[in-house]
């Protein structure tokens, strides 16, 4: 590959032109090699992580019970059981988070693109940036300080959802904002010229045009918050049993299950459960990514 890349830089008919000095050529070659190496350095851990998770978790996931049972009543070294209680918790907590974060995020994005002028808009943009840099543990502590200490609620799956909102919100705002900005002004003008009020123009013309991209962004954000661990550590207790109630009681989720097995179950069975849950999480995230792609194709404006 290195030589191939070098050739591109060579004059087409060498004899007619000045010769490249060896020093320049060597430097160019080294740079090319290093840059390719850097890329490999990024790809190796990706593949390595995925292969490790697959190799250690596959035998757990391959069992149908894994998807249909909980770990309720099982001791640390009991074989069997499953993680459907944790899958349920992960999905419900993230969906509740999306229910809150998506409308707010979309409205903020609309504000920034369609209405935002002056100081407030600048402040909002800036704060969205800052929010996207807030560590997940800080978001969790904030919800703990507000929801549990100050307002007096108990730890619950819903508290987790609230913390996840803080993490999902900036992602939804950013991606929706980008998508709304891609909608040409000409469409807005065409709509105004038909005597359609601004809010209807946004709801019926601008958002549908950007919808495919917005949905992709939401799905990816959802996949991201599903793997967040810090909020579940702080804001909800772990239970091996299924708990359908988001608003009270201990509730498992995949990251929380992995962590509690890691902390309190040193047996090989615990290790199996950890890697099984890790693979389950990877599978679910992969499915969400896949769904994002499919959904965007499905909703995208058609040409023909």
């Amino acid at each position, binding site marked *: 590959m290195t030589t191939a890349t070098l050739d591109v830089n060579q004059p087409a008919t060498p004899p007619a032109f000045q010769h490249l000095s060896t020093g320049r050529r060597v430097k160019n070659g080294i740079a090319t090699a290093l840059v390719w190496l850097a890329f490999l350095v990024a790809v190796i851990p990706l593949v390595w992580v995925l292969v490790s998770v697959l190799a250690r978790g596959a035998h757990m996931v391959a069992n149908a019970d894994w998807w249909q049972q909980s770990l309720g009543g099982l001791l640390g070294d009991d074989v069997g059981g499953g993680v459907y209680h944790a899958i349920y918790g992960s999905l419900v907590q993230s969906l509740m988070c999306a229910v809150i974060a998506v409308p707010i995020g979309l409205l903020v994005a609309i504000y920034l693109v369609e209405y935002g*002028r002056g100081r407030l808009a600048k402040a909002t943009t800036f704060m969205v940036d800052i929010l996207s840099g807030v560590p997940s543990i800080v978001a969790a502590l904030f919800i703990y300080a507000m929801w549990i200490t100050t307002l007096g609620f108990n730890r619950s799956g819903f508290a987790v959802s609230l913390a996840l909102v803080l993490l999902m919100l900036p992602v939804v705002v950013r991606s929706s904002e980008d998508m709304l900005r891609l909608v*040409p002004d*000409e*469409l*807005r*003008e*065409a*709509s*105004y*010229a*038909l*005597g*359609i*009020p601004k809010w*209807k123009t946004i709801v*019926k*013309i601008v958002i*549908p*045009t950007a*919808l495919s991209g917005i949905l992709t962004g939401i799905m990816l954000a959802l996949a991201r918050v599903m793997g967040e661990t810090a909020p579940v550590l702080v804001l909800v207790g772990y239970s091996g049993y299924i708990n359908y109630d988001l608003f009270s009681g201990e509730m498992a989720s995949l990251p929380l299950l992995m962590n509690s097995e890691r902390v309190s179950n040193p047996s090989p069975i615990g290790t199996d459960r950890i890697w099984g849950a890790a693979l389950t999480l990877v599978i679910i995230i992969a499915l969400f990514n896949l769904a994002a792609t499919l959904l965007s194709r499905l909703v995208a*404006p*058609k*040409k*023909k």
Partner: protein
Amino acid sequence: MAKRIDVKDLNIYYGKFHAVDGVTLSVPPRSVTAFIGPSGCGKSTVLRSLNRMHEVIPGARVEGDVLLDGQNIYASAVDPVQVRRTIGMVFQRPNPFPTMSIRDNVVAGLKLAGVRNKSQLDEVAERALRGANLWNEVKDRLNRPGGGLSGGQQQRLCIARAIAVRPDVLLMDEPCSALDPISTLAIEDLITELKKDYTIVIVTHNMQQAARVSDQTAFFNLAGVGQPGRLVEIDDTEKIFSNPTQKATEDYISGRFG
């Protein structure tokens, strides 16, 4: 339907920049008026101010009166949204709504205003598409996306969309500048037909086009670099192109500048 427009001493500003200075003109009903002039002379700005579309641009504001059959569209109780429903507009580049079918594009204005009656919408769609000379080309694919049409067809679709809400006046901002000559011809024929029912104002860079389609022509020019644009003269198209009163108009038309 068609109404007359009277513009009285219209000044347009973008923030502190004085873009157009003191325009006064009249557009009789059922006629085509062409705005010509060099780039940046304010002709598109004046056109946009006729249905308050300039207000979409932050900082733009207008002084003076624009009367539609005697009623000032800038009166404080007048809703700009309603002005635009009465005075339609067609843009430089065809801009059908990408998420909608051909039929939905045509009836978008009605549908979004709350008309649900399907047979009424179908009727309007056919009427507007026939009016835009597009019906025969698209009647078999009304449910296909509007983006699949050719540029000229898309522009006629946009005209159909504009006339579907039955405006009194149709403003066209260089409607053919993005089209090939054959599509341009089709649009020009259409303008001549639409004249029977609508008052039309068209901005064009193409002087032959102005000569072909318009009844009267208004020539705009810049007073100087950094100065506001102004209306130099307005008269019957024949007169402007054969025997203009102003030297500047003659220079522009004979190609001596601009």
